[in-house]
């Protein structure tokens, strides 16, 4: 999958430029709520439980203020991606013990046979390793600017 294709996974209603949550669990719930509202999903608790179970395996807060909560659940119909940000930072049990500011939550159904979600996850992880890209994700003021970051990073 070309990195350019990533833009299509970032939907405006699923971009939260300032999380209201201050804890790990609440931040995950806030992002899951965005997916459930957008995609009219009724079983929010199943998704949240899956993500919390994934976090118990090992925090998805990799480092440098970025986390990638992810996993598969039957409760969603297709791949969903939430971009979220917290200016203050959230204690996400990150590997470097630093607060997390950027979140890319990716969930997919188990029937995603092409492992698209691993491809999308890998693409974003690679992008975010670049300090300047990370800074631009932090600075993007709105959805338009976020799209620009993605498009420029892919070019």
């Amino acid at each position: 999958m070309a990195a350019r294709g990533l833009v299509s996974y970032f939907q405006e209603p699923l971009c939260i430029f300032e999380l209201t949550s201050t804890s790990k669990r609440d931040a995950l719930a806030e992002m899951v709520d965005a997916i459930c509202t957008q995609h009219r999903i009724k079983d929010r608790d199943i998704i949240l439980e899956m993500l919390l179970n994934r976090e118990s395996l090992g925090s998805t807060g990799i480092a440098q203020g970025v986390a990638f909560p992810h996993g598969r659940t039957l409760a969603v119909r297709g791949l969903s991606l939430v971009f979220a940000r917290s200016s203050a930072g959230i204690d996400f049990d990150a590997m470097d013990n630093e607060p997390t500011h950027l979140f890319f939550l990716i969930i997919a159904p188990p029937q995603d046979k092409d492992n698209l979600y691993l491809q999308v996850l890998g693409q974003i992880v690679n992008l975010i390793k670049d300090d300047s890209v990370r800074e631009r994700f932090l600075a993007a003021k709105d959805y338009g600017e976020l799209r620009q970051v993605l498009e420029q990073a892919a070019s």
Partner: protein
Amino acid sequence: MTETKDQAKLLVALQDLDHMIKEVQDTQTSTELKDMGFQMDNIGELKNARDKITAQIRPQLLNRYERVSRTYDRTVVPVVNELCTGCFAKVPTSFRYEKHAVMTCESCGRILYFI
């Protein structure tokens, strides 16, 4: 929320967890995720979570899940457009409104989940 509804949701949560455990145990997938920088060390936590879920599922239903899972990778499948997405057999419309039982596909035996 009915007890049946809860049981169906617990089966979905159980399958999610079983897939996660399988993913961790799959060398190719776990290597890919570890190469991205993810930690996947506490598999014991997943097994504890599984025990907690299974303790809440009626034994007969859990047996059905375990039995079907020996045949199919996906034991619980969503119903889309009135079709079982495991075998694509038509699912009677009345199944959606069944309040007293967790429904299974009459064709393949998979457990049905109404999204």
